[in-house]
Every structure is written in C-alpha cells, then in structure tokens.
C-alpha cells in the first residue's frame, strides 16, 4: 500500500490495532436495529405535530401518546408519556422512566416533568453546564441507569452532533436513557444541558452528569475540549 518504510510501519500498527480487537462483537441484534427505526419514525411524526402546535402559539403542550395507554403485565394502566417535539418522558410499567432528548428546550418544563416521575435533574438549554470540578466527584450511576456500565468515580457524557441529526432534517441529539427513579441515590441529581449552532461543524452539543445536588454548577457557551471544565 505504501512504499515508504516508515509509513508502512504505521500502516502495520493500524492493522495490528484492529486485529487485536478480533474478540469484540456487536451485542445488538438485528431486531433492535429494526426497532430503533420504528421508534425513530414514531418520534418524527410527533415532532411534526409539536412544530404545528408551536406555530399555533402552543409552544409547550403535553400530548397523549399515539394509540391507547400501555398496560402493565398486571393489567394496570401505565402513566401517559409527556412529550414535546424536543423531548419525551415516558413512565414504563416496570417502574422505570425513559427520557428521549432531541434537545433540552423548554428546560423548566422538562425539569418539572422529570421531577414528577421521580427523576431529580437540573436542565439547561443554550449553554453547557457541569457540576463542579475535580473536588466535586461525579456519583456512580450503576444500579439505576439501565444499560449503563458502572464506572468507578462516577460518569458523565459530552457529545457534539454534526450534520443531519438522528431525528430528521433538524439536527437533534436523539439521546435516550432509561432510569429507575426509586433506585437513584439520595443527594444525587442529573445535570443535563445542550445548545445548538454554537460549534463550527457541529449542530448541537450536549452534556450530562450525575452529581451531588450540593455541587456547584458551572456553565459555558463555548465549545469544550475533551476533559475541559466549563
């Protein structure tokens, strides 16, 4: 591929790095890919409805899910989801809550909606916020965040999404988490924030952390580099 011995060495190192991962396999079955697409299509329909409401002056509205309310295995009716074009909060029959965020606009409404289903959170839109610095360690999310890998020392994420977002022509996060509110440790809360059109080459950026409720929250409207604090 390359006649230069030095560059051939780099090429060899790249292929060795790839081959060292031969034991890694996708744990996502094909059925989940189809399911993701079905969920995405459903959300697109709701997003269009939300935009129409906003144009009519109903910028914030709670709507019922399409179809009837979900039924739990014991026959009880699950709570109806709260949803906007920007986000959806869904209570599940097993006691968990799934929130899907395309962005965090209407942050006060989202914060109240999460609080009503037992998820403590501080939500911001238009800036990136994080709870404290190295002196304020993040809290462990193991045990109450579904599908999350417990990490010693706590965990948070930061992302910047480029180009067409996952929800259609409007860039969005398409970020979804399922949590068990009753298992959330007391004294902890999510800090969730996002802002759009602020990063060259990116359409939206977002961050979330799970931190002490007493930790100070710092915010910025600038692009963060890996590991950088606001």
């Amino acid at each position, binding site marked *: 591929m390359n006649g230069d011995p030095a*560059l051939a060495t*780099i090429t060899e190192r*790249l292929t060795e790095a790839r081959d060292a*991962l031969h034991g*890694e396999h996708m744990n996502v079955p094909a059925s989940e890919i189809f399911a*993701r697409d079905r969920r995405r299509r459903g959300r697109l329909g709701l997003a269009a409805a939300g935009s129409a409401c906003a144009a009519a002056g109903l910028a914030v509205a709670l709507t019922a899910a399409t179809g009837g309310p979900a039924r739990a295995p014991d026959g009880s009716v699950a709570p109806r989801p709260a949803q906007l074009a920007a986000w959806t909060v869904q209570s599940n029959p097993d006691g968990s809550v799934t929130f899907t965020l395309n962005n965090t606009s209407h942050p006060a409404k989202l914060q109240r909606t999460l609080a009503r289903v037992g998820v403590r959170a501080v939500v911001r839109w238009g800036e990136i916020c994080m709870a404290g610095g190295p002196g304020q360690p993040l809290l462990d999310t193991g045990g109450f965040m579904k599908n999350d890998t417990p990490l010693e020392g706590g965990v948070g994420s930061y992302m910047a*999404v480029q180009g067409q977002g996952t929800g259609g022509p409007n860039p969005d996060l398409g970020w979804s988490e399922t949590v068990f509110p009753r298992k959330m440790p007391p004294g902890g809360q999510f800090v969730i924030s996002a802002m759009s059109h602020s990063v060259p080459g990116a359409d939206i950026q977002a961050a979330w952390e799970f931190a002490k409720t007493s930790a100070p929250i710092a915010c910025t409207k600038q692009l963060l580099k*890996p590991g950088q604090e606001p």
Partner: protein
Amino acid sequence: MEQDRREFTDFYTAARDDCLRVVLTIVGDRALAEDLVAEAFTRAWRGWRTVREHPAGRAWIVRTALNTHVSWWRRRRREITVASHDEGPGAVSPDPALDRSLVAALCRLPARQREVIALRVLLDLDTATTAETLGLPGGTVGSHLSRGLAALRRDLLTNEKEPIA
C-alpha cells in the same frame, strides 16, 4: 418488504463485527463504538433501497458512524484529574486491547484523513472504492492517505517515549 428485511439482516450479520472493530480502533470507546455502528446501521435500514446498491456497504456504515458525532466521550472525574486533557476519546473507557496512543493520535487527525485511513487501511478497500465512497478523486484519496499516515507517525514519535520506526 420481507425480502428487504432478509437482505438487510444478512448484510448486518456479515458486516457488523468488522465495522465495530474499525470504528472502535478509531474512537477508542467500546460503548460509543457500538452506539455509532448501531446508529449507522439504523440509517442504512432506513435507506436500504439505496444502500444495498452501494459498492462497499461496510464503507458506507463506517463513514456514517464516524461522521455521526464530531466528538463524544464518557468522562470519569477521577481519570480526568490524572490524565492528559488532550487525549480525547482515548482518555476514557479503558480497554486493554486498545492501542491508546494510536487512538489519541487518530483523534487529532483532520476528519477527512481519518476517514481515508479507516477505509483504505482498516477496511482494506482499494483506492477506487474509497474514492467512490467519499466522493473524492483517486489522487486525492492517495494524498489524504499519505498525509494522514505521516501525521500519525509524527504524532506518535512526539508523544511516545519509544520511537516506533
């Protein structure tokens, strides 16, 4: 529709692990790589009538996965306090099988050079297929490849104690 599902499932089953390993080599985070690849396959299924005709379906998946996010990383406060702030995605989610220095160097490359390296070197595609996938002239692919590999070499020589060549 059922025929499409079968075809897509066959493609997914045959290609998913290869795509995961290529994306993981570059982003350096297992959970992130799987998210990105799953997202790329979801988009492929949505546009399956087009993607099925692509000359290199794996290349379409890898390129889509790498372009989905500019940057995304999981943070562990404890690590951040002791690790370099410039290591990007390579600073988190340790995996003993990963070449951390290489991940960090790849992270610092311009996106186009990273794409070319992913397709030409890690997916082992020829220049013509890489050029068609990226919408570039073949000569430009060669140029990006040479520059990208040279930049990786310089980066690794600078940041590693032991010279690699």
